[in-house]
């Protein structure tokens, strides 16, 4: 065993609480020497090292703020649904923390001449039921993913997949109707493309059972209460899982999560910026923060004829009076970034902060002139619906409502419970809405709604917004397999959206999680999931 192996072993023991003071003193010298040679090892690397002789140890209880409605692997969209099942399943491809696609259950992949993709599967991968994963399982899974059994619903981003062919036991070909640069990203997102054993739906109750290849296997699922999991010893990944038991407990009240965290009943959870401030002085807790994909936006409904904001000049005028810095400071305490349609953190695709500052520059006089040019200098009345909880959406709306008074626009803020808000959003029953966008597997997902004729475009924009340059760029980017070449296209599309003020993107807030110090290796994932728990460890194992 060389010195580096010793360092790694020490770090593993350190992370798992299996070290004594004497061990620490002995090893610290070796570590310091290693670090001096540039051989420092991060916790993340630690989680990825092979720990063949280390058993998973300790239990983690994590609080969810909404109950997972069920455990179905396919066709359940909500964030809560994904939070309940994310540790059971893997996809063919994964993302690293910077959203670069890396091998998952497929070791490698390449596009063929027709634009379809060949995936070479990892060998020796075991399902939780003990069976080995083969191409037949992948074909079954992909078939289920594109046409999910009810109550799953077909997911639009997988609509271009026409089927999956088995090439041999460890090779599959995923066929697409057209050349599809979004496929790898959507697989890496993993949310809709879990790999389950063949005939899973016939042999299991998919609503409340889970059989995957993930690091945790299901012990118990109680609706609206808990999901209990234990480490899967035959997990294909290296060095994980580190913890032996993981319980996801639904605690919808934030103050309950605060109390439970302080008393050690839970090891961590998600908190609002306001609450995190009250936890900052607690030495037993660590506050984690990070960007997640929730760009906040003011959305216009332009499908209705005769609404003043069908005129681009009206929307541009509104854009010029909204002070996004005020939103950043007053709503999020400075913990937010300017955002375009694609939020900062999403690889190379977002617009730079400088470009965004230029596009969002305030100019009240120019805004008033635009309103005069559009013939609306006397303003108008409008209803601005906002998501009631979390409060930040309503607060965004209040600031916007205040700002547009400068243009004689009377925007009445109406906070709505999420069910009502969502129903109005989906059916287009609104004038303006203060809302947020979620995570996407491919950048096209952030801008698709502005493409004339797409599903939500018809409901939200109708013939009230149409930009030919945008439409052309959108189509070209969807035919381009070279991801680097797609970057400037999506940046230009975002510029068009901001210049036309088709919707008004505001800011991208940071997400906060607080954890007990005993939990190490957790991080705020950009994908707005708790995937850090996959590689987290506990320093005491009681």
């Amino acid at each position, binding site marked *: 065993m060389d010195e580096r192996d010793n360092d790694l072993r020490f770090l593993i023991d350190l992370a798992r609480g299996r070290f004594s003071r004497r061990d620490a003193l002995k090893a610290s010298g070796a570590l310091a020497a290693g670090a001096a040679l540039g051989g420092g090892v991060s916790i993340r690397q630690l989680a990825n090292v092979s720990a063949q002789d280390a058993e998973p140890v300790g239990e983690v*209880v994590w609080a969810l703020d909404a*109950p997972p*409605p069920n455990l179905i692997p396919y066709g359940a969209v909500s964030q809560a649904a994904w939070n309940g099942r994310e540790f059971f399943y893997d996809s063919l491809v994964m993302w690293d923390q910077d959203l670069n696609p890396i091998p998952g259950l497929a070791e490698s992949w390449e596009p063929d001449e027709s634009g379809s993709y060949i995936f070479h599967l990892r060998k020796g991968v075991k399902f939780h039921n003990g069976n080995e994963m083969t191409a037949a399982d992948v074909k079954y899974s992909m078939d289920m993913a594109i046409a999910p059994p009810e109550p799953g619903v077909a997911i639009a981003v997988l609509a271009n997949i026409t089927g999956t062919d088995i090439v041999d036991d460890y090779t599959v070909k995923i066929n697409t109707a057209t050349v599809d640069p979004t496929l790898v990203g959507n697989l890496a997102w993993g949310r809709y493309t879990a790999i389950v054993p063949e005939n899973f739906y016939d042999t299991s109750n998919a609503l*409340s059972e889970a059989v995957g290849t993930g690091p945790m296997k299901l012990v118990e699922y109680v609706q609206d209460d808990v999901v209990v999991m234990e480490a899967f010893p035959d997990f294909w990944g290296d060095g994980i899982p580190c913890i032996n038991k993981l319980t996801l407990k639904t605690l919808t009240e934030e*103050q*309950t999560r605060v*109390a439970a965290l302080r008393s050690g009943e839970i090891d961590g959870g998600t908190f609002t910026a306001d609450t995190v401030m009250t936890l900052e002085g607690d030495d037993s807790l660590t506050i984690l923060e990070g960007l997640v994909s929730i760009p906040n936006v003011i959305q216009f409904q332009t499908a209705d004829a005769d609404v003043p904001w069908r005129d681009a000049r009206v929307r541009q005028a509104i854009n010029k009076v909204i002070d996004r810095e005020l939103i950043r400071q007053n709503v999020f305490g400075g913990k937010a970034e300017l955002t375009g349609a694609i939020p900062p953190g999403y690889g190379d695709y977002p617009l730079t902060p400088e470009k965004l500052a230029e596009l969002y520059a305030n100019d009240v006089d120019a805004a008033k002139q635009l309103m005069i040019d559009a013939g609306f200098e006397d303003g108008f009345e409008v209803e601005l619906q906002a998501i009631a909880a979390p409060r930040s959406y309503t607060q965004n709306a209040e600031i916007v409502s205040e700002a547009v008074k400068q243009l004689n626009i009377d925007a009445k803020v109406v906070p709505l419970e999420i069910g009502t808000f969502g129903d*109005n959003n989906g059916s287009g029953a609104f004038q303006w809405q203060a809302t947020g*966008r979620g995570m996407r597997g491919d950048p096209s997902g952030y801008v698709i709604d502005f493409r004339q004729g797409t599903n939500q475009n018809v409901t939200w924009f109708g013939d009230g917004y149409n930009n030919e340059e945008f439409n052309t760029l959108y189509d070209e980017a969807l035919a381009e397999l070279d991801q680097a070449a797609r970057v400037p296209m999506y940046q230009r599309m975002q510029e068009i959206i901001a210049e036309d003020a088709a919707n008004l993107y505001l800011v991208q807030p940071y997400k906060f999680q607080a954890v007990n110090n005993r939990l190490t290796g957790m991080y705020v994932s950009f994908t707005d999931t708790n995937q850090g728990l996959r590689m987290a460890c506990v320093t005491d194992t009681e």
Partner: protein
Amino acid sequence: MSKYILQRLALLVPTLLGMSLLIFAMLRLLPGDVVDIIAGTDGTVSSAAKEKLRDSMGLSDPIPVQYARWIGNLLTGDAGKSLRSGEPIGEILMRALPITIELAILGLFISTIVAIPLGVISAVKRDTAFDFAARIGGLVGLSLPNFWVATLMLLFTSKAFGWTPSIRFIPFTQDPIGNLQQMILPSIALAVPLMAITMRMTRTTMLEVLGQDYVRTANAKGLAPRPVLYRHALKNALIPVITVIGFQLGGLMGSAAVVEVVFGLNGVGNTLLQGIFNRDYPLVQAATLYLAVAFVLINLIVDVLYAWLDPRIKLA
């Protein structure tokens, strides 16, 4: 008496029918449905796919058809399945019921054993410092919403003692001590407003009874103060108090929802609330009907108890 009870039970039928109609209609008035919850509203799923799911869940059928189907199934003992997890509603409620019932009974017990002595002492020691303190305490207890009391309790014990009740329910049959440790705080939170009402009611009725002729007579014929107080005054003073407690108990089953949410207990109230948020119609309908039945039955028991305590009252 038995005729009266049968009459009251018969009245349960139209009451529940009315309730079921109300619940059914009100739920459908809420915008959105479970398909929106499953499919999201972010454009990830096409409208056609959502409609297909609605059709197969029977949510596209006319409302009267849906209602008739639900009532028909209910009459055969089938309360349906959760639209989210597919779990039979009966199983969900049987899991949730013991939590809510225990919470309600403990809440009632705590409030009663504290409030009645306080009310009696307050009445006997009228206009003393104790009386003023109890009355002010009662007023405060009445004014505090129990979600606030519950949250403060949790935050206080976590900050002061680094302790909060277990977030997973411990059945009494498995670990009685653990169960009581877990349930004591939520029960107190639930008991506080009820305690205040009962205490004030006891005080008022005791004062009234203590001024009655028969109490004066009892005192005049030389009975010791204690027998007068307990045998003559208290028993009569308790009749309206029991009515109030009974009414409160029915409400307690509902207001337990708030306490259950704060303490992360998965009782009927919390289940009902999550059902509403997720538009899980069969679950909400069944849970609400259960609460309605509980309310009506508790009122019936109170009425019977009332007659037993005061033979002058004839039930007919």
